[in-house]
């Protein structure tokens, strides 16, 4: 570092014929090149150092604060009305907390090996839970839900498998579901009931926690209620349905859709005379990423095949008899899903009974309706909460200043 291009200055102001000593240019070139590479490495290392050290600084502060507030907790709960509780203080080997301010002790990179999430105050996992660079964590502890990103083929950043059977027919999916149930019964604790794991994990301590990818099994396809006709249908078929439901692709299909809707909501009579030509075929394979098939192709699916395949849920122009069957089967499916989510345990037996017994149709319709409501409710419920929005009327204070937005108006 001390031999910093001594020739640089001379070369700069030398006017015409600067003769360099033999080998000088070579030395100079090497020196410049080395310095440049040094700078690149230096910048990269410093950038990484900054990120990691700041995380440790915050972690040391968070731990100290948590400790201080934990000490403070009992009095404040007993006499909640007492105005000025004693000033919270706490000291760890990495930081000193004094009434809202944290003073670091020593180098956080040495004192604080772990990263504590400043939001939920739980330790962060340091390695992905699967795939590239994965390490099995200590499962007796609870972790911040923001896991390191997973890099594994066929899986998303959270570790969820990609949806696999978007294009599968309903019958196939139900078959899979049955098999899944069967498997679940034999070995308890397999994926498929991840949601319940998460809820149970909150209060438990000492118990082994389960890592949670937050998503759904690969076979999962969500259902959605059509905002227009309130029918519930598979998300992958939504555009197709809405096209007809809103009557976008011409009057013919609009009428077909209307007939379909009234057929469903009414007593499912008089639907049979819809021309078979307007029937749509199997779900678009495009949902798997290959690009959707053109409309014309979809229309070309033969009606016979469709009837046999029991293709999907966007039918509606089937015979009334057919319709009943379908309603029933879909009902069972919904009920079984609901049940599973309520009880948190896979219960194949209950489903079987329902499949076999023929429930009175009136009762069935009732429960169908209530279910639909429940689904709507659960869909709307979360967004309505608007948890993160603050209405303090400060448009100028963005809540999430990501680095690039730091200067946003």
């Amino acid at each position, binding site marked *: 570092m001390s031999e910093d291009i001594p020739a640089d200055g001379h070369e700069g102001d030398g006017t015409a014929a600067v003769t360099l000593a033999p080998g000088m240019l070579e030395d100079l070139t090497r020196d410049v090149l080395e310095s440049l590479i040094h700078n690149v490495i230096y910048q990269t290392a410093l950038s990484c150092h900054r990120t990691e050290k700041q995380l440790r600084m915050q972690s040391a502060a968070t731990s100290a604060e948590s400790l201080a507030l934990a000490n403070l907790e009992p009095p404040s709960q007993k006499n909640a009305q007492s105005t000025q509780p004693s000033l919270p203080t706490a000291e760890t080997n990495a930081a000193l907390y004094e009434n809202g301010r944290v003073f*670091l002790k020593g180098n956080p990179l040495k004192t604080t090996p772990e990263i504590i999430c400043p939001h939920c105050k739980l330790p962060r996992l340091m390695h992905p839970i699967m795939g590239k660079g994965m390490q099995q964590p200590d499962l007796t502890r609870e972790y911040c839900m923001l896991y390191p990103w997973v890099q594994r083929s066929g899986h998303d950043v959270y570790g969820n498998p990609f949806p696999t059977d978007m294009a599968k027919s309903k019958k196939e999916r139900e078959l899979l579901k049955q098999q899944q149930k069967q498997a679940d019964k034999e070995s308890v604790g397999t994926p498929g009931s991840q949601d319940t794991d998460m809820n149970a994990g909150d209060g438990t301590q000492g118990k082994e926690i389960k890592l949670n990818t937050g998503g759904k099994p690969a076979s999962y396809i969500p259902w959605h209620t059509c905002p227009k006709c309130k029918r519930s249908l598979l998300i992958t078929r939504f555009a197709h349905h809405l096209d007809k439901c809103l009557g976008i692709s011409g009057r013919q299909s609009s009428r077909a859709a209307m007939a379909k809707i009234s057929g469903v909501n009414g007593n499912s009579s008089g639907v049979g005379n819809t021309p078979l030509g307007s029937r749509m075929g199997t779900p678009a394979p495009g949902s798997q990423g290959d690009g959707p098939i053109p409309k014309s192709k979809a229309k070309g699916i033969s009606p016979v095949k469709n009837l046999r395949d029991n293709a999907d849920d966007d039918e509606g122009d089937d015979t009334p008899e057919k319709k009943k069957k379908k309603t029933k089967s879909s009902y069972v499916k919904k009920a079984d899903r609901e049940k599973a989510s309520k009880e948190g345990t896979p219960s194949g037996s209950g489903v079987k009974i329902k499949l076999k017994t023929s429930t009175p149709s009136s009762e069935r319709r009732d429960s169908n309706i209530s279910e639909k409501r429940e689904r709507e409710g659960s869909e709307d419920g979360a967004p309505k909460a608007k948890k993160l929005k603050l209405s303090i009327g*400060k448009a100028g204070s963005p809540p999430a200043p990501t680095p690039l937005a730091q200067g946003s108006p």
Partner: protein
Amino acid sequence: MEAIAKTPALASPKLIKNAKGAVVPSSQMAHIAYGCEHMRTMIENARKPTFGHYRGILQKIYEEPSVIAQTYNSKADGLSLISLRPLYLCLQCPNIMTETDRDEHIDSKRHIFSVESRSGNVYCGDCQDFIYDPDLEERRLQKGKKRKYEDTTTTEEHKLVLNNSTFLPCRAIGLRGLYNMGQTCFMSVILQTLIHNPFIRNFYLSEGHKTVDCERESCVSCALDEMFVEFHSVEKTEGFGAVNMLMGSWLAGEALAGYQQQDAHEYMQFMLNTLHLQNGGSTDSEDCDCIVHQTFYGRLSSTVTCDNCRNTTTALDPYMDLSLDIRNLPKKKKSEAANSDEKSIALQSCLDRFTGREKLGAAEYTCQNCDSGQNATKQLSIKQLPPVLPIHLKRFEHAKSTSTKIETKISFPLSLDLYPYTTEYRSKAPPKNVAPPNTNHNINSPANTLIYELSSVVVHKGKIDSGHYISYSREGDDWFMFDDSKVVLASEKEVLGAEAYLLFYMVQALEL
């Protein structure tokens, strides 16, 4: 270079409640007072001089010619030497030193703090490490400039926020896929770029569009609001079904409605226009301060010079994106054809052509001065740049009866200097391919540059009539690939190698 200024954007906007739901602390995150124990002593004893001196050093690093901070006096012979490597500027005296001299200076003078000369980070001799003091760091990120913006949130407001907020899952940072609802990937990619646009995100997350007060039916802005809430406050990680958005879009834009494939660029234009109208904009007003205009609105200057009388007419046209021609350059075919057909075309040369001079025939242009058709020269340039610049590469060619897709590879950079395409530069510096001079000789904030950074890429795969759209977006330093409901980590290399259709460049830094 600026990578150092970026913090990993791992945490989403959150409000805090004690893990057990009990006591709510006075601050959102534990507040660190000082970078280290030694800096605490320093600032407590000499607050003003420390900050003052640090600001002076930062101005030296970010404004004055870089050679000043890169020159030191040799200990051996007293000569002034220039270093390409980082030097250290003492925070307590005017010394500029090499790393070894710095350590000696710390021991002999007990001036324990020094500032490295490349980006202004502070080194503590007692910690023997770089420290990141919150107050100093704030000044460093401002590049030593005086802050105009003040956080005016009062304690009362802070309490109000804390009392009315609930804990949000740490995982909900906006990374979710969008289910393909049947040929809707053109919509998903545009929505993903909007969701990962910090300007749009901050607008919606700060109650920019109040769904409760909105009386429109099937409002697209409400549907986008719903998505932001869903993406940033729910623990779920599976895809999202943008049903309301689909319905809203179809009802608002008849041309795009229906179960069929659409062009993502058209959908983007539709979205921006609709969001503009639904957030207080009107159809005719040019200067609109709605969020869409604040984020995407720019103006192009179009100058036509008559070859006969040299009369010049200038027109300003608004734009929300630049549409670039990517066909092979017709004139250079002979010299470069062999190479350019195989190789990729650089985005910069597309921009060069876009802002280049174009001959107009007498049939195309009527000079008002000469009152007749005249040959003329036309030139486009960027008069005003938006904070986020979408660039559309014209991959789809529509002839009379057939449409074809141009599959030419376009190479694009992670960071793009847009200054050479501005009116300011084009009007006074005609020679092509000459980089504008850096008149202030500073490498950290060079004059005559306008650096934009790549933030999102929309990719069209496959044939024109049976293709598929995917997109990439950056969050912090990480790139993610969005393919319908799938979200996957992507490498920079993968992003830069993609067959881009739309590129989104975001300004590197905004001055407040």
